[in-house]
């Protein structure tokens, strides 16, 4: 009996020795699998990512070279944004003048004091990113030391870029609309009908808006904006325009193709929007859940 036992053991050892390659393969693949599962869905851990300080710093240096090409487009976009803001400023100045002419000045002052800012803007540069995968990510050169936190909204002069998914000290990782894990709540600007914006992984210029009821009036060229129903997004940020309309196979809902406002090909300078009242709102909403 002991002899047999020894023989069995010998067989097992022999088997293991014969198949070491295969065993090493399995071990390495299991490690990879663990990495994938622990990181993905929503990349909270930032060790194995470009938000990591080492690769982030390298990226930053390299991006200085590769983004030189994108500067003209970026410049044009900033000029256009500037022009738009100047026009808006002029308009609001006239409104204020009109109000202060007609209403007692004291009341205007108190109104202005009450409207303290809800949103704060941080600027950053994209230092790394992909656009041709189905799970694209971008790295920006501002992190927790600059006041960036997860779930903040990232925009550029054209519209919404995405959400901050992970932060390290000096870098942050952005989950853009063109990632199959991205789902943001949007609405049609004209009719106020809400829906969800997803991405099917096909073209970096087109995303899909779903859950819009069939009775909504939709036309090609309608503007799609953020709905403001999640506490992360300010309401009314431009996302894109409706480029294709079709009815869902199961009926009752539209599947809208949305031409994205942001050109991910030439993305460089971005702004991160911080909601100053987010904590307060979340706390209130939590009391009902």
């Amino acid at each position, binding site marked *: 009996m002991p002899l047999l036992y020894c023989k069995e053991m010998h067989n097992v050892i022999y088997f293991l020795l014969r198949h070491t390659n295969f065993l090493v*393969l399995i071990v390495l693949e299991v490690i990879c*699998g663990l*990495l*994938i599962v622990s990181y993905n869905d929503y990349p909270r851990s930032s060790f194995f990512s*470009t938000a*990591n300080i080492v690769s982030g710093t390298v990226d930053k240096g390299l991006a200085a070279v590769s983004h030189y090409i994108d500067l003209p487009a970026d410049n044009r976009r900033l000029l256009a944004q500037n022009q738009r803001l100047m026009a808006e400023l002029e308009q609001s100045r006239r409104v204020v003048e009109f109000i202060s002419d007609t209403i007692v000045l004291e009341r205007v002052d108190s109104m202005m004091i009450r409207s303290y800012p809800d949103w704060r803007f941080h600027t950053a540069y994209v230092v790394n990113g992909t656009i*041709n995968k*189905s799970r694209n*990510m971008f790295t920006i050169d501002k992190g927790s030391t600059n006041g960036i936190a997860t779930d903040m909204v990232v925009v550029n002069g054209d519209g919404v870029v995405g959400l901050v998914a992970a932060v390290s000290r000096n870098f942050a*990782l952005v989950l853009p609309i063109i990632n199959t894990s991205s789902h943001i709540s949007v609405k049609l600007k004209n009719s106020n009908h809400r829906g969800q914006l997803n991405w099917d992984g096909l073209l970096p210029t087109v995303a899909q808006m779903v859950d819009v009821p069939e009775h909504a009036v939709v036309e090609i060229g309608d503007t799609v904006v953020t709905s403001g129903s999640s506490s992360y997004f300010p309401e009314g940020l431009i996302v894109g325009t409706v480029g294709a309309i079709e009815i869902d196979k199961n009926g009752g809902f539209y599947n809208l193709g949305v031409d994205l406002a942001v050109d991910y090909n030439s993305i460089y300078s971005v702004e991160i929007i911080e909601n100053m009242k987010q904590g307060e709102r979340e706390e209130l909403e939590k009391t009902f859940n």
Partner: protein
Amino acid sequence: MSNTGNIVRLTILLGIVTLIQVLILNNIDIIPLCNPMLYVVFLLAMPFGTKSIPMMITGFVAGLLIDVASNTPGMHAGACVLACYMRKYILQLIAFRNAYKEDELPSIQGYGIVWYTKYALMMLVVHHIFLFFVEQYDRLFLLQTVLRIVISIGASLGLIILFGLIAPGLTGQRYKES
């Protein structure tokens, strides 16, 4: 080529292809669904005599390097490890007159473009199928993924052969004892 020479050559090769992959290829979107993976040329360039286990570990490290730079931890590493494991069988399948010299390097210059294309294609098929299916692990768009694999294999193969022709010193010329 000496052992140290090989290590130096492979390290330089890995550095160069990683930079090209991360800075240029990851950001190009000319053809839809096309994600060319030039860095696989690094796995192809290892000497015939490389044992499976060191090969898999090297592949794992190289894949992890690409993963860190493109925010896909584990995916490229997994694909590389599998491709490295399969290389032995692929080489047996397309054996060149039934003999590879242990210390020789698989190259276009040494074994001809037809042999090299077969070799690169098989390695890419293993690598890309694994990579793009794993990338879709939670939601599967089957048709899109298959198209992505086919288009990307074509683009990767073209780039790898081009790279081999442009930089024969890096991907390895035929070793001659003299």
